[in-house]
């Protein structure tokens, strides 16, 4: 304050005005120098391109003929771009909803544990990972081969846990080897057998490498005699590796077929069933005397369950959204968690004192109070989801690309990836811009509000 006073008293008035004007002019020049680099770049590489694209979107593919709004109507007529519009709509509805919900639940739960920070760090970390790397990670996880993709390995594992037979889709019986084939793919002994018998059921058509690990030679079990009230037998691979075996006989090196379902049938009714052991042996104890036949039901020979086609046309978009969740859940959780920490502790505690349980507190107090934060998270995600490109481009395999396409990828394909229609491509870019505007206006308003 004192400085100001001494200054104003020093020079005569007229000179002061002139100096002030000069200083002001210099100040302006300096200010313009400060903003010039930014304005030059923004003008040349952002403003001009927007105007150019808007103009270009009214011209045809080669850019020579004015076509008015044709590119915009074409967008909703062409099946490929229409698919992109639809998929983007699915993305915009599903991904932000799931993320906000998941983020909310995790934000509330993580407050209750002592290692909250570690958990938040772990879930936030994928935000540092590029969409490309995430794409490779999930391409790997979604691989259709259960021997490569961890998700299908899990799916097959769960499926097979509820099914105790191993599949032998290629196995068959030799003609005239005593087994007749039913219409449903099952096999049945041609002659009848009685308790006390030991039957040998030879199959062929299983490559030695397809034998389950742990399959053992069947000859010992084939020689074991059956008790008076039991039926014994082996299911074996009637093929000696290296040759030399005798057809129809259980040679020493021949392997049993484990986990084959076997049924004892009497008068057309299944009276007992079992599965074979590692050496292919089975036994039906406690049978009444009579004549039976032994059957191998068709389920033994059905194609094995090989998991879910995650990246097939039907599931590719949900699968990619899954990868997107992996990346963004931490973001939603941390942002919602920040909102959660500003909630008035008293009203939560008061509700608990009044006997409300955790669920009621969550439904009636936490969620309504958090509504503004949830909206911000949702809108922010909408903006980002609308522009999703890399993940779709990387995860969807070539042939499925057109089933997974979204606006950003379609814009790329149409303009640069072989479509070569820069008119339609520009129109798609403009559509993307128009779609982002409302969400962006909302977000900027909120951001400025929070700055004040």
């Amino acid at each position: 304050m004192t400085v100001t006073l001494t200054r104003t008293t020093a020079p005569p008035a007229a000179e002061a005005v002139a100096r002030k004007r000069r200083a002001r002019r210099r100040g302006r020049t300096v200010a313009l120098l400060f903003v010039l680099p930014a304005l030059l770049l923004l003008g040349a590489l952002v403003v001009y391109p927007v105007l150019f694209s808007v103009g270009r979107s009214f011209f045809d593919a080669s850019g020579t003929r004015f076509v008015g709004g044709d590119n915009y109507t074409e967008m909703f007529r062409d099946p490929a771009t229409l698919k992109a519009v639809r998929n983007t709509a699915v993305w915009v509805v599903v991904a932000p909803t799931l993320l906000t919900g998941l983020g909310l639940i995790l934000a509330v739960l993580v407050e209750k544990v002592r290692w909250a920070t570690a958990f938040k760090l772990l879930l936030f970390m994928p935000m540092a990972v590029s969409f490309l790397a995430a794409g490779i990670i999930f391409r790997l996880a979604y691989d259709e081969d259960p021997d490569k993709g961890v998700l299908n390995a899990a799916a097959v594992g769960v499926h097979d846990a509820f099914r105790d037979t191993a599949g032998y889709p290629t196995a068959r019986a030799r003609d005239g080897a005593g087994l007749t084939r039913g219409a449903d793919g099952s096999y049945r002994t041609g002659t009848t057998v009685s308790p006390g018998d030991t039957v040998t059921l030879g199959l062929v058509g299983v490559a030695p490498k397809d034998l389950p690990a742990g399959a053992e030679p069947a000859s010992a079990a084939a020689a074991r005699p059956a008790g008076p009230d039991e039926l014994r037998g082996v299911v074996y691979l009637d093929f000696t590796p290296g040759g030399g075996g005798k057809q129809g006989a259980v040679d020493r090196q021949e392997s049993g077929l484990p986990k084959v379902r076997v049924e004892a049938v009497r008068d057309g009714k299944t009276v007992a069933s079992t599965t074979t052991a590692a050496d292919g042996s089975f036994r039906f104890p406690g049978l009444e005397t009579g004549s039976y036949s032994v059957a191998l039901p068709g389920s033994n020979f059905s194609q094995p369950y090989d998991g879910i086609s995650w990246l097939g046309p039907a599931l590719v978009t949900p699968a990619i959204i899954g990868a997107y969740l992996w990346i963004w859940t931490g973001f939603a959780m941390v942002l919602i968690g920040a909102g959660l920490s500003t909630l008035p502790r008293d009203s939560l505690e008061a509700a608990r004192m009044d006997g409300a349980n955790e669920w009621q507190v969550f439904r009636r107090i936490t969620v309504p109070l958090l509504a503004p934060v949830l909206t911000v998270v949702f809108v922010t995600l909408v903006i980002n989801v609308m522009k999703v490109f890399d993940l779709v481009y990387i995860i969807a395999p070539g042939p499925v690309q057109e089933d997974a396409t979204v606006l950003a990828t379609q814009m790329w394909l149409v303009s640069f990836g072989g479509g070569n229609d820069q008119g339609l491509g520009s129109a798609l870019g403009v559509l993307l811009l128009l779609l982002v505007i409302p969400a962006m206006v909302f977000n900027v308003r909120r951001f400025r509000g929070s700055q004040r």
Partner: protein
Amino acid sequence: MNLSALRRGLGNSLVQAVLVVVGLLWLTPLAGLLVSSLRSAQDTAKGGWWTALTSPRQLSFDNYTSLLGNAGMTRAFWNTVLISVPTTILVVAIAALAGYAFAWLEFPGRDALFLLVVALLVVPVQIGLLPVAKLFGQLGLFGTIPGVVLFHVSYGLPFAIFLLRNYFAEIPREMLEAARMDGGNEWRIFTRLVLPVGRPALASLAIFQFLWVWNDMLVALLFADSSSQPLTVELQSQIRQFGSNIDVLAPGAFLSLIVPVAVFFAFQRHFVQGVMAGSVK
């Protein structure tokens, strides 16, 4: 009383269990990538990466050794550095200058121009691709690293200026006026006062911007040619033969994500703030 305490205890262990499962779920894909990157092509063809957990003899650094011996890969890695570091410096520097001018200097049309900058926040990168590609073609910048950098800088600026102007505007007026009275010119005030005060915002912005450009694929896919392409584009070009290329793709992806993840763990707070603020984009 005892019952509710018991119930709370039970509920808490349930919560812990749920969070542990979620945490494992989040870790598994990353573990899958890491383990896959350490296995040979033959092992990958034979079985899933999880088989290596029981037979760790499958693991070796051979993939990484051959990756580092691959000239295309190492060049792509350096290109990534050469693109993301200058972009980050330029965005922060240009936006800091402009942000200060918009916040504290007087010039005609200041508020209208700032509004325009804010409006440019909505412009998606996609809309600039085609026109800028044409422009760069005429200027000889197409397919070069400076071209990629300029594009990134331009599309990073609206947000950066927006963030920094708002941050600088919070500097107390008295502080700036005192500096002016002491005879400091604007440049001095900017470097000696504004930049040090604005450090937290500058750091968050720099980290966000670095991350954004390091991880970009779309821009480089168009603007970089085979000699200037970054790691993301180099890896992307091998995706077509995904199944047979896992021994290259997995270590490559790991190499590309280890830098941002390291930045993440080194600067957690700035990183989270930067990403949070940057999500307006």
